[in-house]
């Protein structure tokens, strides 16, 4: 039987470990591969540009400083999750950690609301991004305004939701190995498209852009005169007072953070999957993959923002967003902007080349940022549902996989059917819009629960902690995971406070102003509690004690 030595004669160093051939002894996975997944999760183009289009609400906020601050604070989240991965690399991520540390009931309710119920809301958000970044700009560029108009209608929005759900279902059915290959192709071509966009913005002046904007506004949207200035004027009718990129004010910088969470809070999105990865106990792998996923994005965002400031003019970009959203939300007095679709920076950059075919190709290439990313919408959710089903909290059919195609049809049904209902509400009941704005906040609440689990881990599960590679990481005698988790918790609590209690309803999610979202989320937590209680009673009658799942067997 062949055997191996680590640190042995082959390297000239003293051997530190003698290994024998045994199942599962694999070589480490590539940090780059895992980085790609994390990079997609904090998607610069899809989520990033969409999220940044709301920054006009804090005109005195300095976007660049906020982005860098967010990167620093989210690094604590990354460290917290990397440490948890190394202690308990379990399938299920948040659910597994919370239930093993905080208890089965708390773990189920806190994680299932975030990773299951809240992701229903993300399907329409993804669909909306697909419409504003792909269908609408492409249709206008190709001269088909009727197609663009369809996708802004209620039926069009619902159809877009169905397209997203169909795409996600296909990806889950294909499996991650196939999709990972697709992702890599999308990654490289998408990066190429971004490089082209950056070069165009870098070599164009603001007057070039003004001319290009006015030309395409007339050509594609039938606008007349100085559409650039008209856009700024339209924003003013909705109450927008202008924005100066050079203004730095601490308070507004902090107020921007909850907006940035929409895309920068997710480098740990793959944490629910790390349990399936051998070698996850090595803290460096999950840490560096998430760290670089976050910071490469932060760096690219910084570059794109600076180029937009230089070429579009920051005040114009903010005004275009303000004019669009004020018109969309029918803000009192708001006037429709001359370019009546979402201000897509990629489309604007394309306009600097006076060729509609080139503009269309750029939009299509940049859509790969969507298609390489959107497929993982339900991937983590299915893992959490599996974990809950194996714990017998959900019925066993929830974890069923079809024999031939290995489709997790149980969990897919649990995700897709409610998503269709929620998508219909999104499309046909605009009064529920505030509910969807809460989608980020509820996931942040789930992360907070995991962070609390991380903070108390060294005391609540001493056995696991002491056996883990991070047991020796201490600062002034205090476990590093508790300190890092503490910083993360403060960061998350600040954002949650702003989302739920901001006095001027800056994020559209303050409890005092959005009763429908309070009711919706109260219902989700009540339903989660009800599922657990029902499961507890049913299983007890079957002779199964759910409390027993995570109780440690005494060693001695």
């Amino acid at each position: 039987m062949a055997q191996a030595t680590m640190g042995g004669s082959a390297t000239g160093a003293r051997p530190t470990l003698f290994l024998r051939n045994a199942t599962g002894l694999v070589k480490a996975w590539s940090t780059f591969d895992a980085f790609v997944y994390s990079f997609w999760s904090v998607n610069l183009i899809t989520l990033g540009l969409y999220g940044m289009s709301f920054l006009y609400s804090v005109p005195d906020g300095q976007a660049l400083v906020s982005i860098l601050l967010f990167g620093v604070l989210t690094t604590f989240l990354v460290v917290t999750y990397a440490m948890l991965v190394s202690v308990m690399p379990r399938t299920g991520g948040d659910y597994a950690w919370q239930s093993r540390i905080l208890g089965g009931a708390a773990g189920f309710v806190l994680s299932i609301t975030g990773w299951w119920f809240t992701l229903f809301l993300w399907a329409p958000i993804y669909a909306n991004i697909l419409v504003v970044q792909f269908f609408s700009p492409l249709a206008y560029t190709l001269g088909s305004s009727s197609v663009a108009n369809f996708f802004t209608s209620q039926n069009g929005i619902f159809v877009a939701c169905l397209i997203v759900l169909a795409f996600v279902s296909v990806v889950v059915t294909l499996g991650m190995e196939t999709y990972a290959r697709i992702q890599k192709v999308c990654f490289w071509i998408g990066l190429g498209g971004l490089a082209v966009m950056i070069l165009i913005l870098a070599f164009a002046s603001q007057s070039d852009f003004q001319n290009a904007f006015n030309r395409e506004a007339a050509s594609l949207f039938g606008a007349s005169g100085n559409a650039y200035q008209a856009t700024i004027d339209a924003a003013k009718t909705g109450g927008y007072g202008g924005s100066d990129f050079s203004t730095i004010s601490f308070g507004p910088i902090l107020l921007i953070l909850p907006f940035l969470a929409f895309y920068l809070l997710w480098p740990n999105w793959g944490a629910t999957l790390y349990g399936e990865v051998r070698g996850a106990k090595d803290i460096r792998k999950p840490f560096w993959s998430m760290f670089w996923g976050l910071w490469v994005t932060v760096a690219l965002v910084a570059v794109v923002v600076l180029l937009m400031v230089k070429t579009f003019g920051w005040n114009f970009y903010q005004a275009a967003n303000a004019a669009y959203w004020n018109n969309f939300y029918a803000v009192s007095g708001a006037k429709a902007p001359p370019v009546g679709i979402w201000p897509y920076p990629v489309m604007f950059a394309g306009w600097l080349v006076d060729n509609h075919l080139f503009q269309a190709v750029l939009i299509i290439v940049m859509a790969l940022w969507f298609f390489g990313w959107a497929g993982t919408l339900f991937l983590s959710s299915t893992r959490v549902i599996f974990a809950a089903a194996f714990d017998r909290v959900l019925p066993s059919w929830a974890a069923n996989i079809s024999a031939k195609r290995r489709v997790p049809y149980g969990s897919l049904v649990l995700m897709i059917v409610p998503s269709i209902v929620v998508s219909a509400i999104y499309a046909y009941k605009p009064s529920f819009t505030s509910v969807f704005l809460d989608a980020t906040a509820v996931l942040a609440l789930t992360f907070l629960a995991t962070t609390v689990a991380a903070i108390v881990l060294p005391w609540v599960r001493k056995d696991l902690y002491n056996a883990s590679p991070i047991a020796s990481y201490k600062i002034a005698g205090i476990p590093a995971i508790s300190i890092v988790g503490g910083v993360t918790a403060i960061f998350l609590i600040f954002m949650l406070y702003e989302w739920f209690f901001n006095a001027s309803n800056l994020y559209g999610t303050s409890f005092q102003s959005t009763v429908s979202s309070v009711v919706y989320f109260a219902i989700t937590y009540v339903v989660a509690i009800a599922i657990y209680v029902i499961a507890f009673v049913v299983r007890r009658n079957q002779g199964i004690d759910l409390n027993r799942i995570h109780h440690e067997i005494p060693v001695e």
Partner: protein
Amino acid sequence: MPRIFFATDLHGSEVCWKKFLNAARFYGADVLICGGDMTGKAIVPLVSENGHYSYVLGGEALTVAADQVGEVEGHIRRRGYYPLQMTAERLHELDADPTKRAECFQEVMLDGVDRWMKMAADRLRGAGVRVFVSPGNDDEMEVDEVIRRAELVELGEGRVVEIDGFAMISTGWSNPTPWKTHREESEAKLAERIDSMASQVPDQGKAIFNLHCPPYQSGLDEAPAIDADLRLLHGGRALRPVGSTAVRQAIEKHQPLISLHGHIHESKGAVKIGKTLAINPGSAYEEGMLMGAIIQLDPKKGIKSYQLVNG
């Protein structure tokens, strides 16, 4: 009504073995089944120098005084590795000679299994608990003899055993793996091995198949995809079914009451294959967590209840 506790793939973790033995009282089980792969994968040398001992664990180089070695050995065993005190000369001798290293490994492993067997006898003598162990593909053939000699533990491999009116067949053999381990064979031979036992079971409705390798494409056999160089692909996110078609066909053909599996640590789950409930409780031996399944059997209902636990 037998109440079974099944765990598997302890891979040398002494903490997990102790928990396994204590699971009888903790979960009220009267039958304990260890599904294989009980031996460790690595030796951690504790090198004696100038009255101190040096070792590397988790990438960290450490030196301890002689009176702390016992504590360190316990910590290493907890992780599923074998601690071994040696001189620097012996270290280099083992490093240079694969044959001597293999002999050393076997000696350490068999000592470990023997210690575990004695521990079982000490803890469970007179408790009325039956303990079955069926070595897995990672366990060398010599392990069987150590178990056979054990006072209280019964060897499951290759036999049909009766458990309160239910019949259990066991094998730790698997289909070929990239690691070329000790008990691997072609699917055809594995099918023959299983069939030769299954055909002796009088009532498949009361049969327990304790087969280390999970059935192919069952969801209990999903392992990270690797390349020919054993390197994980796609950041470890891509999964492939690696179970045995022979095991699957045996389950589909005989439709036992329940089938118990391990082998793929990440693929914890419980699925139905026809009438058969197939379980892989997974393994987290490195953290000292004992993942297992509690199965309450009933002469009339068959399976009264089952539960996967993380003890």
